[in-house]
């Protein structure tokens, strides 16, 4: 069992979920409530990681983060080291490829709140912030939890993009999914089996949680 790889994977997943939480709430709300020119394009771009082959997506992220790119240059000047093949670069990639898993369930969750309920909150004297805290977030909570669990599980399992952007640097960017592949290459059947079993268990728990949350969501008739 490669404990370092497991810890990197868990760190990556936790940071990804924490950073995506406010992004998903903000983007999900805007997409659910507002109509603006180009909304379809934005929704398509958000969904893109679902259909793009991970290696292709990873390749473009690698190019976009590389030392030759504006992002890579700004990063180099600000922090004194390159973005690709570091944990930070991996985290940024992880946030981007998890956008659909975070935003889409939250968007559905906010959409399901009737417009009159939001108007009623305002007519009760709640400021938009108070309405978000007291009415919208509690009602969208099952969807938000679903989004968080999906992003978490997806980060643990992602292979292609992680390999392209992070390489497989032990202690920095080698995640558990890549460690499994390494173990198989090294004919360490027992190590691969242990880690695979762990990921399988995590996936099962994830699916169970998603089902529990979506049932909670049905508690309040629309």
């Amino acid at each position, binding site marked *: 069992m490669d404990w370092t790889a497991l810890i990197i994977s868990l760190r990556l997943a936790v940071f990804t979920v924490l950073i995506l939480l406010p992004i998903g709430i903000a983007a999900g709300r805007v997409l659910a409530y507002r109509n603006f020119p180009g909304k379809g394009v934005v929704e398509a771009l958000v969904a893109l990681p679902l259909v793009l082959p991970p290696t292709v997506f990873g390749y473009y992220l690698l190019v976009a983060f590389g030392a030759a790119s504006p992002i890579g240059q700004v990063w180099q000047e600000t922090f004194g080291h390159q973005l690709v093949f570091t944990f930070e670069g991996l985290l940024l990639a992880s946030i981007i490829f998890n956008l659909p898993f975070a935003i889409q369930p939250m968007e559905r969750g906010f959409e399901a709140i*009737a417009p*009159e*309920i939001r*108007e*009623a*909150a*305002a*007519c*009760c*004297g*709640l*400021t*938009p912030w*108070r*309405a978000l805290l*007291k*009415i919208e977030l*509690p*009602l969208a909570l099952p969807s938000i939890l679903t989004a968080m669990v999906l992003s978490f599980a997806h980060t643990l399992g992602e292979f292609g993009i992680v390999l392209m952007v992070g390489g497989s640097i032990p202690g920095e960017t080698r995640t558990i999914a890549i460690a499994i592949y390494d173990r198989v290459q090294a004919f360490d059947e027992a190590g691969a089996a242990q880690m695979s079993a762990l990921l399988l268990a995590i996936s099962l728990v994830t699916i169970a949680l998603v089902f529990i949350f979506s049932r909670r969501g049905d508690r*309040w*008739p629309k």
Partner: protein
Amino acid sequence: MSDQPGLQVALRQEAPIPLAAEFACTPGEVLALVGPSGSGKTTILRSIAGAYRPRHGAVAINGETWFCSDDNIHLPPHRRAVGMVFQNYALFPHMTALQNIMTAMERLPPGDREAEARHLLQMVHLDGLEERRPTALSGGQQQRVAVARALARKPQALLLDEPFSAVDKATRQRLYREIADLRRALNMPIVLVTHDLDEAIMLADRMAVLHHGRTLQTGTPEEVTTRPLSPEVARLVNLRNVFDGTIAGHRKEGGAVIHWAGLVLETAQDVRLPPGTAVCWVIPDGFVVLHRRDRPSRGEHENPVTGMVESMLSIGQAAMLTMRPHHDARLPLHFSVPLHVARRNGLAPGVEVTVSLLAEGLHLMPAE
């Protein structure tokens, strides 16, 4: 729109929803906005609450401006002290009845909210149901929670959007009485949106008739239902006896004489129109009087019209009749009599009857 007490509303826009509404509502008054669905009633209510921003116009209450397109003022709903009861109540589903009401009490220190909310629930006769979620409440109970929640904000005006449409008839009758009691205790402008004319007549001091976002007429229910300003209003308030005519002359004792498809009719209404002018006229059911066959009755000589009963429908203790006048069978006349009168006079389809169109009820309007 300055320091007058009460609510003043003037809204105008061409698109996306046409609006040309203007009305006022004084404290303690119930104003009903009446019109068919799609007539802009809810949009007007949302404009008052601040949930919708029309292109032009102004909304002011007790001297305070909530919306004024000229001065570019548009307060968001949470800054307008308004109590709104939504059509399906829009209660917060994840909260108990008590929490729903306490949510509208941000103005109070947290410690004072619960006592006040319990007091409001008591006022709407829901004590004992504090801990129920909306799904565990009946339609009538939900409506009362919605009313209590609307009042929890100490609003300057109460807005009711079809508040009785989601409950059964028996509950509705009880809620009518409660709303009537409540308004006496409140002394604030109350705007009631409804498509139900009888509801408006029963509850409102004044009503505004709306069509395609325009206020066609504002007045007491009696005014609007007996003296509509136009044939359009007449039809919107369910007056079915709307006909064309021409001015024939004027009566010495006041009032006008008109021609109606070859018949001469008198009205008590004073109009200064030259003979030959095309007009529309209307007579509410209540001013069509049946001539009794056995002995003469009141108004025997006023505008008699003879025809054949085409249909008779009993609704409760009343018989609704349609007759085809002999002088022109294409102009059906509708009237109603108590059921016992219909029986005593042997009214039935095919029977010949004579009615009088009472001159005091015959109302002239501009031709369409």
